[in-house]
């Protein structure tokens, strides 16, 4: 594979302004061939605008966008080799399911028998056999979503763009569709660019996640890297839960930094650049354990403030001597001492492994 065709979409210094508002700010982004890339962020972070610029519905104010090796700036949506699954599906209400799916092929001039065949195959792929003659309004939300997916997939685009496609579905269906989407993506091997504000969706399906904030990408990495080694407090807070403690680096030795925080000192592993000055230390709640005593490193005494039943797990919010709180998510029937019996006011001891603390820029 040559260098030129390694990426399906490339953003170079792309900025998009709406009036005085900067929606996308000097963005660089490479979408690899065949990957499932999620643009994750809260509303107004520029993720949808970025997607619409790939689709061709918006043109960048400055910068360049390459789709494959072709400059896409100024190319209208109908001449781009990308297709979109819209947030509310945008199915044509006056056409049957089959005609909806065959619509794009008809625009391409594919002859009738052939486009029927291919539309049928696309409907089979999303498990919608037998619904060809229905109108979109006669289908459930989940089925409409599948029609929208089939309608875009039948075009065999270079890149498939998905704009929060699961947003309108209920919880269980969302879960099922995540599995389904991933299966389809692997089956057809098309590059997916997926816009969502739901970190769970992004984590479960993506090969890489681009966490966006204020028109910029905060971090672009594999889901587990984004989770384990967030590049900033924003990313750490956006993906999963995170206890953060403000502190000052006292020293670094042997790959471990010692940080003074309000509740004492915390040791955090360092990779790469040596930190100094004010930092934030983050610890994931599920890495905090309830232990019997204070014998050993990384242990603190605390008082239970709230106890929340999460099903197979229990969330404990505990206050340390200095008044700061630490959240722990512990398994119910796990090795931790009698967490099932804990009530607010109980004195407990908390611990975390040496590798758990993460250093974040303050």
């Amino acid at each position, binding site marked *: 594979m040559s260098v030129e065709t390694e990426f399906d979409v490339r953003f170079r210094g792309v900025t998009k302004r709406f009036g005085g508002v900067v929606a996308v700010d000097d963005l660089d982004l490479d979408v690899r061939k065949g990957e499932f890339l999620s643009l994750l962020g809260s509303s107004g972070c520029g993720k949808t605008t970025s997607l619409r610029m790939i*689709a*061709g*519905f918006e043109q960048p104010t400055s910068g360049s966008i390459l789709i494959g090796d072709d400059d896409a700036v100024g190319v*209208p*949506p*109908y*001449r781009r080799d990308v*297709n*979109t699954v*819209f947030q*509310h*599906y*945008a*199915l*044509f*209400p*006056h*056409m*049957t399911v089959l*005609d909806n799916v065959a*619509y*794009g092929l008809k*625009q*391409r001039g594919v002859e009738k028998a052939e486009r029927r065949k291919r539309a049928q195959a696309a409907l089979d792929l999303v498990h919608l056999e037998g619904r060809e003659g229905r109108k*979109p*309004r006669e289908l459930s939300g989940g089925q409409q979503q599948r029609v929208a997916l089939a*309608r*875009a997939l039948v*075009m065999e685009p270079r890149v498939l763009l998905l704009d929060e496609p699961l947003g309108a579905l209920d919880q269980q269906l969302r879960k099922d569709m995540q599995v389904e989407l991933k299966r389809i993506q692997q089956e057809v091997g098309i590059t997916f660019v997926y816009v969502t504000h739901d970190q769970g969706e992004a984590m479960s399906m993506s090969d890489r996640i681009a966490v966006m904030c204020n028109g910029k990408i905060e971090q672009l990495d594999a889901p587990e890297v984004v989770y384990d080694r967030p590049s900033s407090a924003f990313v750490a807070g956006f993906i999963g839960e995170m206890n953060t403690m403000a502190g000052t680096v006292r020293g670094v030795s042997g790959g471990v930094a010692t940080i003074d925080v309000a509740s004492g000192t915390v040791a955090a592993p360092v990779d790469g650049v040596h930190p100094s000055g004010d930092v934030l230390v983050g610890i994931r709640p599920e890495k905090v354990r309830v232990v019997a005593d204070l014998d050993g490193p990384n242990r603190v005494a605390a008082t239970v403030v709230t106890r929340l039943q999460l099903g197979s797990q229990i969330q404990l919010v505990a206050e340390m001597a200095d008044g700061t709180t630490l959240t722990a998510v512990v398994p119910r029937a796990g090795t931790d001492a009698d967490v099932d019996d804990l009530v607010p006011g109980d004195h407990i001891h908390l611990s975390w492994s040496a590798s758990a603390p993460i250093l974040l820029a303050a």
Partner: protein
Amino acid sequence: MSTPDLQTGPDVSTTSAPSPTPPPPAAAVGGAKPRRRGGKATGPRYPAWLAAPLLTYYLVIFVAPLLLLVAFALATQADSFAGEQYAFGFNLSNFEAVFDGLYLDVFVQTFLLAAGGTLATVLVGFPLAYWMARHVSSKRKMLVVLLVMIPFWTSFLIRTFAWKLILDGNGAFAGALGIDILYTWKAILIGLVYGYLPLFVLPVYASLERMDWTLVDGAKDLGATPWRAFRQITLPLTRPGIMAGTLLVFIPMAGEYVIPQMLGGGRFLFIGSVIQGQFIGASNWPFGSAVSIALMLILSAFVVLYVVSALKEEQFGE
């Protein structure tokens, strides 16, 4: 004379494009006070007498005059100069006279000009409605709608007379531009389009306002050029509004007599002018009534054909 047929317009416009989201369960409201059991529980029930004012109005203003008209059309004009006398009965000769060669030409001329006027109204009005719905900021929309309606605040007669002054080849405006079309069919066409434009623009604007434009994005995304997206998506989905609009202008245009009289200088006889002449000039009420009924029947036939063909197109156009 064509007032009854106007009823068709609003009826058509209510069959709006289906919205992507299912309508909220209206039964929730009706269920609160189940006055009667069974039947369709699709909305709140109202006592039947609430329809009485409308029904009375309808009977007095529409049904009664229509029956009167039929009675007159079947009457015989007494052939005496000693005052107008009618002999009521069952006399079909008035209708036979309507379809005599002379009046048939007037019918054809009327429908040609009304059809031309409707077409011209569509060509002027659709882009205007489209521009209003898509390119005017939501803050200014009410203002633009108001501007479209403002001409209605002045008498139709005065506005038509104003066109006579504007188009007069000896007048200041047309004279300066070297235009001399007053008392031609062109002047009538201009008058028709001007007079009926708002009646077309408003329903079409309303249906374009309801349009879900992400569908057009969807079509473009699938490779449709803007023109094809317009033809295959926007047009079919706004068809109810366009149908309502064309009917709302075609029907009264076909019954028009002020515009052809003032701007056509009496050289272009409309069937409306004939009717007016029979009632006011010739004082032949039975014949005037027969012409009115013929006009109504022909217009009704047109409307039925139009609606049926439009619905058929919707079914097979998919």
